[in-house]
């Protein structure tokens, strides 16, 4: 039996409508936590042609100009075309203020273990964390490269090197694997939008993107591409304008882009737009933290940590580890060590990662940055769940 297979993952640029929604949702979370780190806040967005819908539930001392913030994000992302831009789009905001009593009184960092134990998960949820040795950040190769391409697209647009490039774009990377190790780049797909039809013509657009975006990224890639590697740039023809003028967007629809590009499992719940007391968001970070440390400690080449939470309990009811046969010790043993080395209780993770104060430290920007190019495996940000500092505890 040949153990060779092809696996592809996709990423999108910051102007993709779904990601735009994610960024607005997380910018709202940032703004609330920046003013009041104890805020309870959930924000969701949807965007279509000329209207942005925002629904926010909160209990907070903060006052946030939610539509103004949304416009700021749209402006930052770079939508300036006539069909959709920060100035002329309409923003429909639905605000629900829940009683302030539901807002925590003390940050988790000032709580003892007893009190942490009394913070229950408010959801019945299974979350996953994954890590593997494909890349230095211990991320799967397909999503890693897809993010690099998406980032490169945005950089070329922002720096003005490809001035015609629109904010909306999508990248796909297919990697050929052998025995679960990446062997070669099987194919690259790019979907790039442009402001004006025919500028540049499709052929030149393809050339420039291959030259300026794909080649530099593949040149630095940890996996080789070859003469058989296939490239697709706007295979269905030019995409003019793109963005919300072309297709609508919704918060939480790109969870695989946020995580492992489907290479590892991920929970269906959205990550963006949620405050630190939401177990579906924080649990995903905690699981990644554990999985990454397991791989970094050399316990396995590949590791998926599964945490299942039940309503009303502080910690997970189940901690499972899957190493796909790459473990140095049995999976059950890894799971046991993980359980001992990590505090997976909701409050414990908020405390360990200091999730409430991160936006304040970043001058009001933290979660919003997570909303593009992945919430895990980020080498450009210092994310607490990307630290590999628990090797000793894992033995």
């Amino acid at each position, binding site marked *: 039996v040949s153990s060779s297979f092809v696996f592809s993952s996709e990423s999108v640029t910051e102007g993709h409508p779904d990601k735009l929604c994610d960024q607005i949702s997380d910018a709202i979370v940032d703004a609330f936590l920046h003013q009041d780190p104890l805020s309870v806040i959930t924000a969701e967005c949807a965007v279509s042609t*000329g*209207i942005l819908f925002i629904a926010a539930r909160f209990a907070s*001392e*903060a006052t946030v*100009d*939610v539509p103004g913030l949304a416009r700021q994000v749209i402006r930052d992302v770079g939508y300036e075309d006539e069909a959709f831009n920060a100035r002329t789009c309409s*923003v429909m*905001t639905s605000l629900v*203020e829940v009683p302030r009593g539901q807002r925590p009184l003390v940050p988790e960092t000032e709580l003892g273990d007893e009190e942490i134990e009394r913070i229950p998960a408010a959801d019945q949820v299974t979350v996953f964390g994954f890590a593997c040795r494909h890349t230095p950040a211990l991320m799967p190769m397909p999503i890693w490269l897809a993010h690099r391409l998406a980032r490169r697209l945005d950089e070329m647009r922002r720096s003005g090197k490809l001035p015609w490039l629109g904010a909306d774009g999508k990248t796909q990377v297919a990697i050929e694997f052998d025995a679960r190790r990446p062997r070669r780049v099987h194919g690259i797909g790019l979907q790039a939008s442009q402001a004006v039809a025919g500028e540049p013509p499709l052929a030149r657009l393809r050339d420039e993107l291959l030259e300026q975006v794909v080649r530099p990224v593949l040149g630095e890639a940890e996996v080789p591409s070859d003469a058989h590697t296939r490239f697709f740039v706007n295979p269905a023809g030019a995409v003019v304008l793109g963005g919300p003028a072309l297709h609508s967007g919704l918060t939480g629809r790109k969870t695989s882009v946020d995580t492992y590009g489907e290479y590892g499992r991920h929970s269906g719940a959205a990550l963006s737009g949620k405050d630190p007391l939401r177990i579906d968001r924080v649990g995903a970070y905690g699981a990644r933290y554990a999985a990454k440390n397991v791989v970094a400690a050399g316990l396995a080449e590949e590791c998926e940590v599964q945490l299942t939470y039940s309503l009303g309990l502080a910690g997970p009811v189940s901690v499972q580890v899957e190493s796909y046969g790459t473990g140095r010790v049995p999976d059950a043993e890894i799971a046991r060590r993980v359980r001992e080395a990590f505090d997976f209780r909701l409050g414990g993770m908020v405390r360990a990662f200091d999730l409430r104060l991160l936006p304040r430290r970043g001058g009001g920007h933290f979660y919003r940055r997570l909303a593009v190019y992945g919430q895990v495996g980020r080498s450009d940000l210092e994310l607490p769940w990307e630290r590999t500092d628990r090797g000793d505890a894992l033995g």
Partner: protein
Amino acid sequence: MPLPQDAVAVEPVHARVPGRVRLKVAGLRGAPRLQRRLEEALPGRGIRAVSASTRTGNVLVHFDCSLPLDDVIAAVARLARAAPGAEQAAFLAAPAAPEAAPCPGSPPFHVCEADEILAGLGSCAQRGLSSAEAAARRARFGANTLPRAEARPPLAILVEQLRTLPVAMLTASAAVSLLTGGLADALVIGGVVLLNAGIGYATESQAERTIRTLGRFAPPRAVVVRDGAPRLVDAEDVVPGDVLALSPGTGVAADARLLRARRLSTDESTLTGESMPVRKDPAPLDREEVPLGDRANMVYRGTLVTGGSGLAVAVATGRATEIGRIQRLVGEARPPETPSQAQLRRLGNQLVWGGGLVCASMFGVGALRGLGLLEMARSAVSLAVAALPEGLPTVATTTLALGVRELRRRKVLVRHIDAVETLGSLEVLCLDKTGTITRNQMRAVALFCEDRRLTVEDGKIGGAPGAGKERSALRALLETMALCNEAELERRDGELEVRGSPTERALVELARDAGLDVLALRGAWPLQSLDYRSDRRNYMKSLHAAGDGRRLVCVKGNPLEVLAMCRRVQRGEHAEPLVEADRVAVETENGRMAGEALRVLGVAFAERESAAAEDGLVWLGLVGLADPARDGIRELLALLHGAGIETAMVTGDQSATAYAVARSIELAREGQLEILDSTHMERVPPEVLSALAQRVRIFSRVSPAHKLEIVQALQRAGRVVAMTGDGVNDGPALRAADIGIAMGAGGSEIARDVADVVLEEDELGVLVDAIRQGRAIHENTRKAIHFLLSTNLSEILVMVAGIGTGLGQPLSPLQLLWLNLMTDVLPGLGLAVEPPEPDVLRHPPRDPREPLLRRSDFARIAAEAGLLGAGTLGAFAAARRLGGPPTRASTVAFMTLTVGQLLHAISCRSAQHSIFRRGLAPLNPTLKLAVGGSLAAQLATPWVPGLRRMLGLAPFGVRDALLVAAGAGLPLLVAEGLKLAGVWRGPQAAPPPTGGTS
């Protein structure tokens, strides 16, 4: 010259469909004459149909496909350009059109150099116009005034009263009576008609007069440069080319291009709705397509100078000004027919048909039975009069007029009489934030000084730690605020008058109210220099020097920026080092105040021997200002919500401020609050906007022009919408709303002119009275109609049954007319002035599409008419059986029916509350008088010889009295019993659909 000869630009907007093109014609907006010209002169030679809109400035042309598109465009352009007096037309070179648009229209003055414009207008910045030239131009261009909205002439009001179908029918009846020899009948009928029309005319013309007297102010004046010297003239004498001298607190007399400005700012809220003053600058702009509010080098008629000074040359006067254009635009928005108009018209028509039918059929039956034709004709006409609720127009008009008068007593002026009734079916109330919900006055409401939060109420600082003490931190804070301040002070009659922007004024007033002698303070520390806030620097810094050489640096502005410059903090008499804990405390408090939607300023100062480096300021404190919501708004909203009326706030503010205000006044009925933040509402597809608008409670960053879109979106969703407004730009929305509410005291003339309701005092509380009144009026109209229809139907039943069954004619024609006079108008009027039932504001508004009378109402009316008729016929039959002359039985029938109907009026007071239970107010005096008086008159008829003869009555005995009591009393008891048993409750109690508020 900046204006080329062929300035009329025509460009295609939409030309995809062959044979059809939509063209944008510059200058068509607000130019009805151009519109007419295009529509009349274009068709022919291949052009089939033309439709021009002065609202959009677009022309839709249908033409033969064989005609080249370019030819069509050329034809439109030729016509738009060539005709004399095109509003867009020319400068002084053009001949003055005789009647309208006398001055230069709207060439893009904001992109031209000031000198060019001066040259074009033949004026000069230093010398202005000569008196002679000004007089000549005044004669040529006419007065610089805006046309007032036309008042309805008295005759039109009178004709409107008479032009109803029931009146026509009654007049016809009178004519028939006259022809058949019934002079008395004709006179009675004619009297009824004249009475109705008279009451209607009197009430409506009185309302019209009251409105007319509103809003007449002393004529405004303006300072212009004439013959090289400033001169105060009446604003209406300002002509194009006049150089206006602008100073704070004065209005701008004409649209004018700035020549020079010193820190000039104007309040353009009447024009743009932007409540913050706009800074003006004479530099030409580089783009032509700039919204009015951003044309920084133009000032506009109707706006107010709030600060600084400047010179400007008038480029447009009178109707040619922007404000004049808007006024013309307003003329085109049409109000929808109010619910009462539509329903009374429908009901009236139905009744006319019904009356005619009854008339004819009774005549037919009588003729078949061999009764005399002439006698039957008189009876038929009398019955027609009886069947027609001729009291209806009177009762409805009176109800409304009384409501109008009642409201006027509470300083609510109703411009259209039916507006009161529409108020009763009001479903959505859109409120302006600034000026309506709030007072549009900045006030200091909080201070943070010496680590303490101090609240300010009515100018008094709560818990002040020794404001009067020399050298306390609070004192220094107040002094610094008063010194580092642009507001101008003037002592007038011992009172210190403060002029300047709202924020600056609020700060000085706070210091003044705390007991500081601000004038003396400014005298002791004369201002040496003042650095304004700029884009990069969010604070204002002033330098002062005392006589003894000491210098004072005062700074106020963005709290964080000011704090960053401080090294020390004032505590009591001493400045102590500013430590990290102090900074955190200030930042936290700053965040808190911002969270309460306050405008927060930080204040710091430094006293030093010389003007040294600017670091090392001493922190004094924070001051939080707000434009607070009026007292009682929250309770008012709660009342409205209880009455099922949704409220929405319209504001140009950003969402956070709007949200804080909305929260403080509990704008939303449930916890959820929807905000639509849109500066370009016209881009939202109409159907989407309609769907959204129903849920939205805050429309933020909205310009007044968008109010029209909001109103229309809600109306498309089938809502009855009220909109408040005071600015000039609110006109179209006020006009289009089902109820346009103008805020009187500070509002513009145009808003008052187009509104349906004017609140003379800017207090919204009276609106609830108005709504209560509106609902009561609707209910009372229903009660009166209910009464009129059931009693009139009972008459028909009695007559038809009597003749049909061969019992004989129970009532003579004159008895019928007398009955009508007794039991129609007067008790109807009594019911019309019933006070509102106690629970009138506790149920949702009625559906305006619902007919005045529902199907179930007709069943009830028929049932009650049946009861009345049965009682009368029973008494009639019993009296006949008991013997005596035929007139005796007829007398019993006549008495029974009349008394029964009068008693029925008492039953009609409430649809639900029966007389067996308490809970209803006692009989109102009018009803008491009407019912009591009519009863007395009726009971007197057999004893007054003249009346007895005319009505043909027989003597009346105890036996007859008992029959009458039974025949008249039983129907009342049965009707009330049915009410108590809840027979009629079903359809009545079911709440009308409110359209889903979730």
